[in-house]
């Protein structure tokens, strides 16, 4: 039986040379993200913006979205965002945060129930007051920052500093691009999105670390090879693994997008985008960054240090 092989043996891509395209591309994209962030902004869900979300399903027949929208706007809580979603004729309504503190939000649910509960099943009701939403923003931001700092410390211990910096730059790049995905698609940004971003942080580092592990090994083996060639070799020798793991992850995520149900679709889409971006950035962003840093001498220094401690131990 002939087996599948995405990457043929003995592949020698000139990976680092590709930075002439990948760097301007990522820089332009990042600028676009910044511009969108300042102009359009993220489509914050009620977790971070406060307000009320109601998802309901028609008890009989197709939902009449136009009349629901009219009735929702007539409740006196400002303009509601009314959307149809899923395959079972479900409707989601989003009301903005009402003035008047925590108590005012509860009124929205009460009135909406009165208006719709005779013809619709309430499948999901969420209300987040102004105080809680503020705290959730803090916790979410803190989580991302904490993860990055934690990983930076670990990488600093396990790898040389330039490699740690390269990995973190790649991760930041992936976060920016993922935010771009949220900005362009206007997918709702909520607590689950933070989970997706942290997962992408993990996956991004995973991808980079696999390449850098090899870089570290090769640095010790080939003391005189030019750094650019050495980086190309690192990527090429791990390319097959990268391709296979990305494929299995993408396969699993496609299953999640298609069959996981509407509630999880957003998360799955972001992850799907993230996995592709992480694979790209590990090869074309984080690895070429090492060209600009003195990888060789730090590696040699650490090598010498290790030898010194080893011989010191031997003497003792």
């Amino acid at each position, binding site marked *: *039986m002939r*087996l*599948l*092989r995405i990457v043929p043996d003995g592949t020698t891509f000139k990976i680092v040379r590709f930075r002439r395209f990948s760097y301007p591309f990522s820089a332009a994209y990042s600028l676009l993200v910044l511009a969108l962030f300042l102009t359009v902004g993220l489509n914050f869900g009620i977790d971070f913006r406060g307000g009320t979300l109601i*998802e309901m*399903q028609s008890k009989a027949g197709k939902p009449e979205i136009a009349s629901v929208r009219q009735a929702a706007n007539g409740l006196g809580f400002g303009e509601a965002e009314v959307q149809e979603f899923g395959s079972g004729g479900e409707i989601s309504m989003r009301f903005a945060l009402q003035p008047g503190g*925590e*108590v005012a*939000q*509860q009124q929205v*649910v009460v009135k909406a129930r009165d208006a719709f509960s005779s013809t619709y*099943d*309430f*499948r*999901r*009701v*969420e*209300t*987040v*007051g102004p*105080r*809680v939403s503020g705290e959730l923003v803090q916790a979410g931001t*803190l*989580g*991302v920052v*904490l*993860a990055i700092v*934690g*990983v930076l410390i*670990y990488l600093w211990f*396990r790898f040389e500093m330039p490699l740690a910096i390269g990995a973190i730059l790649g991760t930041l790049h992936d976060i920016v691009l993922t935010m771009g995905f949220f900005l362009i698609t206007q997918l709702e940004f909520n607590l*689950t999105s*933070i*989970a997706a971003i*942290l*997962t992408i*942080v*993990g*996956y991004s*580092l*995973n991808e980079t*670390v*696999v390449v850098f592990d090899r870089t570290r090994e090769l640095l010790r083996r080939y003391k005189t090879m030019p750094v650019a060639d050495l980086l190309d070799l690192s990527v090429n020798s791990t390319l097959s*693994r990268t391709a296979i793991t990305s494929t*299995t*992850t993408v*396969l*699993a*995520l*496609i*299953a*999640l997008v*298609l*069959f*996981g*149900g509407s*509630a*999880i679709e957003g*998360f*799955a889409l972001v992850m799907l985008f993230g996995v592709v971006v992480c694979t790209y950035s590990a090869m074309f962003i984080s690895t070429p960054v090492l060209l600009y840093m003195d990888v060789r001498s730090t590696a040699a220094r650490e090598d010498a240090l290790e030898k010194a401690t080893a011989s010191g131990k031997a003497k003792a």
Partner: protein
Amino acid sequence: MLRFQTRKVIVVLLVLLFGCGFALPNLFSPETRKAIETGAPSWIPRILLPIHAVVLGLDLQGGSHVLLEIDRADLVRSQVTQLRDDVRRILRDERISFQGGIGMTARGVSVRVPEAADRAKLLPKLRELSQPVGTLGAFGPSGNNTIDIVEQPDGLIQLSVSEGGANERVRRAVEQAMEVLRRRVDALGTTEPNIQRQGLDRILVQVPGLQDPQRLKDILGQTAKLQFRMVAESQAGDVDMLPSNDAGGQPVPVERRVIVEGADLIDAQPAFDSRTSQPIVNFRFNIRGAQRFGQATTENLGRPLAIVLDNRVISSPVIQSPITGGSGQISGNFTVESVNNLAILLRAGALPAKMTIVEERTVGPGLGADSIQAGKLATLIATVLVIIYMIGTYGVFGLIASIALLVHVCLIFGLMSVLGATMTLPGIAGIVLTIGTAVDSNVLIYERMREESHQGRSLVSALEAGFQRAFATIIDSNVTMLIAALALFALGSGPVRGFAVVFILGILTTVITAVTLTRMLIALWYRWARPKALPF
């Protein structure tokens, strides 16, 4: 690596078997699990019985999650009022003359005592009002007091509730409130409600599978402070103007003096008035309440009594005859539902302060069931796709990776069952995601074997080197993932935390299966097939 001690093999297999065995109860219905638990002989430790299943989060089984926050300002206000009354009592008892009355601010009270001798007499008494904050621990009192006392040179004495004192009050109030809320939720007859403190001033109430979430909120959010007071004859003096349900909503003057409070009730039941067939609440007082109520109704025959709930007059019946039996009824413009709620509230007691709902998340049972269904399908399809791809790429080794993958999924479920962890909708997404990433360890090992064999190593030596060299990479890449997952666990709540748990367990089990099970299966394959080259 290809030589395994039999002892080691047995240990590894036992661990995996046990781990997967713990996942088994998830296939049983809750009734079966209950039957096993009651039917098993008592000498078997409970942990070994197949009765522990994964707990479903509210987003999967349907239910309400309500976060309430106690009104700190309300509590401090009542503390300040109490402080003013105490200061006034001390001044009177000690016969100390002071200028210009007792001043009140949001945080405390102040009084001007011109005579130094009076101040010297007064201050020790005032200090007695203040207690050390917190329980006495191993390190003695913390040095902070509930009330700060400052003496100004011009004779002004300021007493204010300290930050610690206010916190202490909030902490105690939250404890009381949790008890009250528990009684209220229990009265709804729901199964396994979860009530826990969150932070200093919040309480999280989670009630699974509720039919009427609005009723839950009605019952949770109300303070339910019931008072019996007299309607005042004039608006002067110690009188509050309270909004009323009667009299067309006009405010009613009510005497400030409280005759009996809700705390003196021992029972309250919904009923119908035998004459008007209106819904009412029948109640009974304890002995103290009955005495006071009897005395007050005797003294005030013919005057209207105000029944005040949360500073609102719900009815003001005229006292027709003295009520000395200790029982009575509350009527008002009630519906059947509202008397049911009121009876529950009165039985459970009043909250120590106003509580507001700051967050609510309710999922209907239909949506939860749909999510589980979709999650199962996605998991199945993801598994099949990954297995097909792995076998297509690596042949026999792909099959080995697939076995490791299935064991990995079983282990996640097994561990979650034993730990009593909660499975949420994002958690299901986590399972599907780890199905994609779990084979990474295998891929790393296999690709390394391939490289080593291309460099001219013999098969056995390539297999060895594959495991050895890939190991460091597996650890590095998984630890970085683990750090991100731990950050998520630390800061996430509810559903997101469920995802973090799955993610963390998934990272652990994939490392374990890759370095033990995969290794063993490959050794087994080598012995059995006696191959000359890698099968991929």
